[in-house]
């Protein structure tokens, strides 16, 4: 696979970006890809969840502000091909500096280049909510954008904004950026509203725009977060939701490795 950088971004908060980054990262690594998750969200949920045993750790902030290097900040996981660069210690006093450093032309791209020395094939950029400087910098450095679409009506209102931001970045410096797809997240099959969002997205977008795999709302995600592990590690690795991300990873790899065929309207395979 070519070197791929996927920005996980959303205007709306709480849509499952970090959950997606962690579990997709694990699933991609299990498909024998070398994956690094770069935490760009100053909230630091990913690092705080996974590195809960550690009191302090170097991260992206330290690298960008000159008191650390990527070799120190990169955390290897037990999952072999998966590594993580946490955001580091971000206080209010450093937030502005972090945003300025990330927004500096070429800075993030240089860091991504540095990750290639470790054999990284896929970088997942876990962006903060919103379309601020950090997210725009991530889109400017990424090859692909993956957009979680929370299966709730209010989230539909923000889809056009984030797609518009991707379009803007393509026109202003990163023409190679493409939409990898929208991922329906936090889908609740017991909710009419959630179902309506899913149906609206299936019917409004072309096939390539919405990934087939749907991430449901399930308490296992909360429990996994509490334990600081991906869902694939829960229930001795046998929880069905772990399989969900394997399917998503396979779908994404298919998209990355080959052109999509648009259905020509011909006969569809029969059910039985």
């Amino acid at each position, binding site marked *: 696979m070519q070197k791929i950088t996927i920005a996980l971004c959303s205007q709306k908060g709480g849509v499952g970006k970090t959950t997606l980054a962690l579990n997709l990262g694990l699933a991609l690594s299990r498909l024998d890809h070398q994956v690094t998750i770069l935490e760009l969200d100053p909230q630091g949920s990913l690092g705080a969840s996974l590195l809960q045993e550690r009191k302090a750790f170097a991260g992206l902030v330290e690298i960008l502000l000159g008191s650390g290097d990527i070799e120190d900040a990169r955390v290897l996981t037990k999952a072999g091909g998966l590594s993580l660069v946490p955001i580091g210690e971000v206080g209010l006093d450093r937030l502005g500096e972090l945003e300025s450093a990330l927004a500096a032309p070429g800075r993030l791209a240089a860091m991504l280049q540095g990750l290639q020395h470790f054999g990284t094939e896929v970088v997942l950029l876990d962006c903060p909510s919103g379309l601020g400087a950090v997210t725009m910098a991530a889109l400017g450095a990424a090859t692909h954008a993956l957009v979680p679409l929370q299966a709730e009506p209010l989230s539909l209102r923000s889809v056009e904004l984030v*797609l518009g931001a991707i*379009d803007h970045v393509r026109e202003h410096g990163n023409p190679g950026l493409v939409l990898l797809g929208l991922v329906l997240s936090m889908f609740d099959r017991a909710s009419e509203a959630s*179902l309506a969002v899913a149906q609206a997205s299936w019917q*409004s977008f072309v096939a390539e725009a919405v990934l087939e795999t749907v991430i449901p709302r399930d308490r296992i995600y909360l429990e996994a977060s509490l334990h600081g592990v991906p869902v694939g590690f829960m229930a001795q690795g046998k*929880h069905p939701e772990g*399989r969900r991300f394997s399917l998503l990873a396979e779908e994404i790899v298919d998209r990355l490795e080959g052109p999509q065929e648009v259905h020509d309207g011909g006969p*569809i*395979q029969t059910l039985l």
Partner: protein
Amino acid sequence: MAAPSRRFFDLDGAAKLSRRILRPSELPSVPRPDPAGGPAPAAVAPPAPALEPFSRPEVAYKLELLDALLAWVRQGLNAEGCFALDERGFLVASSGELGQVPPEVLLSAFVASGEAILDHAGAEHRLCRLELELTSGTQVALLHLVLDGAQVILGIVAGRAPGPAELQTIQQTIDDELERFAGEVAQRVRAGA
């Protein structure tokens, strides 16, 4: 429940944007100056890739799957031991030696169930909710239908005839549902006593 506001669901603008950004942007060709000194021709942007809205095979596939499963449901209630119901409406599960039954027989075995459900529900109700939930390590899907607030759960293999191992998984899933249902009944009986 009140109908959701349609403005939330107007995705035309987003859909147009998505079609544009699914491919790398191609820069307009650079106009060459006319050697005779005339004005350079205007840059021409390449045509956008042709992608038709509403052509996604998955939608058609899901609708076909839903239709087929509704037909499947329509047959089932005439088959002995196919379904169980709880007091909330339908928590439907099937029993029987599914692993011994060829797919076409399995299909026909469910034909009458939907008729019965529809007869029971009447025209004002609808079977509307669909989710394919893949179980670990298999391509077996569980179909969740909602009938006026109650659930119908059926197992099926997506897109093709089930093999023996998949039928076994369906059977196991259904058995688990029956066991859970039986447990709930026993619990209610104890609570009532």
